[in-house]
């Protein structure tokens, strides 16, 4: 009898512990914060740490708690279309335009920009250093130098596709030199670095990458400063007429705040390794 008793006791103890933990878990979940704003954004604003820096300031200024999901621009807009987030912060003018034309988003506002740069190994086998973007992309395709692409419909990927088109190169797909990673920006730069290839990135993510590699990165900036390399970020609240339960009020507040003088100065002051990552340009 004694044996059965202690078996029971052991299991009851285990069950008791499980119940207590469960109770604690559901209690702490039970109180949703009223002022929570959900945003879908691109990997670049998250990987660079910009949002980690802005979120506490937003909380202090307006009492809004920002929760964000960092995905590519394509996925971010899809989350907006499905009404799974209240607002998006993205960087692809073309897909943003159709997002607004389809009335999923309302009242877009430009927030800031940085620029894209073309990275490659210092050895530069395709010889693109200092060339224009068009020439650089042509040379990479001609020399069949390895090129890592996000290939995920992110803002950077869409920009890359525009650049191939502008350079008169048919969109690469199955070519051996064209590496479609399907991953985030830093992963893709890492892959380019490992393969000694070229890659298009936003400057902010490159500065982060450089910092990660303690100032000695396997790939460096080879092409920069071209007009077609500008990378514009916009904030777009999700249309409450499409999804009644999105929090439009808070989304509009965020949009106003991001484009206010105060937040614009905060964005300008966000630096990594002493370098400014994003340039505010709200109108």
């Amino acid at each position: 009898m004694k044996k059965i008793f202690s078996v029971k006791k052991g299991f009851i103890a285990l069950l008791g512990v499980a119940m207590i933990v469960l109770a604690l878990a559901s209690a702490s979940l039970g109180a949703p914060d009223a002022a929570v704003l959900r945003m879908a954004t691109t990997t670049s604003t998250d990987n660079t740490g910009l949002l980690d820096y802005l979120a506490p300031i937003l909380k202090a200024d307006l009492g809004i708690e920002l929760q964000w999901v960092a995905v590519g621009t394509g996925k971010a807009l899809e989350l907006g279309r499905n009404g799974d987030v209240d607002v998006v912060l993205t960087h692809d003018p073309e897909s943003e335009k159709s997002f607004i034309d389809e009335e999923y988003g309302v009242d877009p506002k430009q927030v800031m920009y940085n620029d894209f740069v073309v990275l490659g190994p210092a050895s530069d086998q395709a010889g693109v250093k200092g060339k224009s973007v068009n020439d650089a992309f042509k040379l990479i395709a001609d020399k069949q130098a390895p090129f890592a692409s996000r290939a995920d419909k992110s803002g950077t990927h869409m920009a890359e596709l525009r650049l191939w088109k502008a350079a008169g190169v048919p969109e690469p797909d199955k070519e051996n030199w064209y590496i479609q990673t399907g991953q985030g920006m830093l992963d893709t730069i890492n892959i380019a670095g490992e393969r000694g290839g070229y890659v298009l990135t936003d400057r902010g993510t490159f500065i982060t990458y450089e910092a990660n590699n303690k100032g000695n990165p396997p790939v460096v900036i080879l092409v920069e400063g071209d007009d077609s390399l500008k990378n514009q970020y916009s904030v777009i609240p999700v249309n409450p007429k499409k999804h009644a339960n999105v929090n439009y009020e808070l989304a509009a507040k965020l949009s106003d705040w991001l484009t206010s003088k105060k937040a614009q100065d905060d964005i300008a002051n966000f630096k990594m390794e002493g370098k400014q990552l994003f340039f505010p340009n709200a109108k």
Partner: protein
Amino acid sequence: MNYITEGFFQAIGLILSMDEETWQAVGVTVRLTVMSMAATLSVGLPLGFLLGYFDFPGKRGAHMVVDTLLALPTVVVGLVVYAFISNRGPLGDLRLLFTIRGMAIGQTILALPIVIALTANAVECLDGRLRMTLATLGAGGWRMAATSLRECRFALMAAAVTAYGRVVAEVGVSMMLGGNIKWHTRTITTAITLETGKGDFALGIALGILLLAISFALNAGLSFLKRRADA
């Protein structure tokens, strides 16, 4: 190569320094696994018992379905549950997407086949003579079922530990349904994905070591209970 040793020391540092972000991810992981395991066990154990204990037409078919579901990919579970709980989906009004509860639903679906299959096997493997002995002793249906369950308690524990291993280590469901939102739905595994994406390999390794440490503590606790139960 440095980042491997660096990761190891960083792990110790993270555990000792009680870094807030890390502990938040640990907290989410623990809450999430407790919720999904509670749901999995309360549904899976009875179903598994029914499947193993009783003979019914279509039993072999049911077995085959459950065994096939053992191979469910996490991203498929994530995708299907997403389709249901997205604001656009049939359960959108419950606002479960990007919450721990939503993630727990996905993990429960992932873990259920494991618990059902292993429970059914454990019950089936019981010595047939046990049932006969009990019957001759005059035990009724409930009594017989309860005794059978107690006889295979360690196999059931193994089923639970295996299911726990699957949910605590998965990243697909947590990433798709939780969204890796800092302070809210970031688990240890999604944090590892993020740190790897950011290029911070050392921190990723550190978090991995921490996850294993938690699982070790849990198994040590179970082993302690088992020894006491045996004594």
